[in-house]
């Protein structure tokens, strides 16, 4: 009943989709964490207004489905004059999405730093930026690193939805293949396994990066 032979001629379609998904993931992981870090710092140390703005942004994104965010950005924004290609819309949507979730995660990390350390840094005459980069960030990120890893993987898996606005990523490839050879189950099964492999690989790569980033513990 199951027959995977019909998928072989389309292996380059799958491969192309896989590459696009990886590209999107790498790009938006960096952008999303950067946005999340910025927002978390604002949320933790900013004035009342930036705090409130960040809080509303986080709640708004966390309480609506990604597909609706994507549709709003891709279909809705052109109506008010912001034209976006499917690729741009996906990068923006994924970044905003990961940004909101990572804000919450990173903020928890920032909150875990004992107040005395921040005060001590101030007394030593360090500027706020120096305090952030030299005192707060490394231990804060170390604490929340596993949670951040999981969130990045969740966003990668969520990127499957982007096929709906015709970005030619992995799920789009699966849709295309099954429309050609009518082997829907097989092509989605293979795609699901590819996603599983990607998720496992991401976890592994994050672990390696984490070891490097936080290696100061062993050396000192």
């Amino acid at each position, binding site marked *: *009943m*199951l027959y995977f032979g019909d998928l072989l001629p389309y292996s380059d379609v799958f491969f192309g989709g896989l590459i696009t998904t990886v590209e999107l993931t790498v790009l938006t992981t960096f952008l999303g964490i950067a946005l999340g870090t910025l927002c978390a710092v604002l949320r933790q140390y900013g004035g009342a207004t930036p705090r409130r703005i960040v809080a509303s942004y986080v*709640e*708004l994104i*966390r*309480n*609506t*489905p*990604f*597909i*609706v*965010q994507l*549709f*709003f950005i891709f*279909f*809705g*924004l*052109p*109506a*008010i004059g912001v034209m976006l290609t499917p690729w741009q819309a996906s990068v923006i949507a994924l970044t905003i999405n990961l940004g909101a979730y990572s804000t919450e995660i990173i903020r928890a990390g920032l909150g875990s730093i004992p107040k005395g350390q921040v005060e001590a840094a101030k007394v030593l005459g360090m500027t706020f930026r120096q305090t952030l980069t030299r005192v707060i960030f490394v231990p804060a990120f170390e604490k929340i690193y596993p949670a951040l890893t999981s969130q990045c*993987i969740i966003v990668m*898996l*969520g*990127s*499957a*939805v982007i*096929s*709906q606005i015709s970005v030619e990523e992995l*799920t789009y490839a*699966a849709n295309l293949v*099954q429309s050609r050879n009518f082997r*829907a*189950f097989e092509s*989605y*099964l293979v*795609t*699901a*396994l590819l*996603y*599983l492999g990607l*998720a*496992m690989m991401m976890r592994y790569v994050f672990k390696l990066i984490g070891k490097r980033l936080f290696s100061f513990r062993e050396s000192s």
Partner: protein
Amino acid sequence: MIEFSNYDIIRNLIFAAQWTVLLSLVAFIGGTLVALALTALRLTRNSILQKLVAVYIELFQGTPLLMQMFLCFFGVSLLGYEISAWSAAILALTLFTSAFLVEIWRGCIDTLPKGQWEASRCLGMSFLQILRHIILPQALRVAIAPTVGFSVQVVKGTALASVIGFVELTKAGTMLNNATFEPFKVFAMVAVIYFLLCYPLSLSSKILEKKFNVSR
């Protein structure tokens, strides 16, 4: 052409939102039941069963929910049964929900000191008695906040049922958009309705978390 007033759009969206709510409820209840069974399997000290549960979790947490929807939709029809988008969505969401709940509850049960298990066994309690009188009352308190928090993910997950053609809130949004050509308005309204559904859940999760943290 039929004209859609704002009132028509909202009325249609709210009608469709009922399906979102129903789908979420059924999937959440189904997911809870499956997760309970899996948690029971995990608590038996059978390493093969435990490994199977771990594989199950990995499979459903490591693949996109959208793929799970497609696989349920096309997989069941491959077996020769007609399956509606509604049933496929329930099946996929139930499996998805259960995989996450098992993992959440595992964390809750593991926070209890091991000594409690050992002490209860020394007192001659059976496995079920330990669960009933010692573990569950404590684990439930810890578990309730993250479980309510996860229900938000279930509600948002139902949006993907639109992709396999089930008419819920998101699908209604795309259909209304096609009829009215006012994507900005329609999708903003869709987002607002989702927000109104999810935010109370998020908020109560946060409140529950605070409440139970204080009492411990």
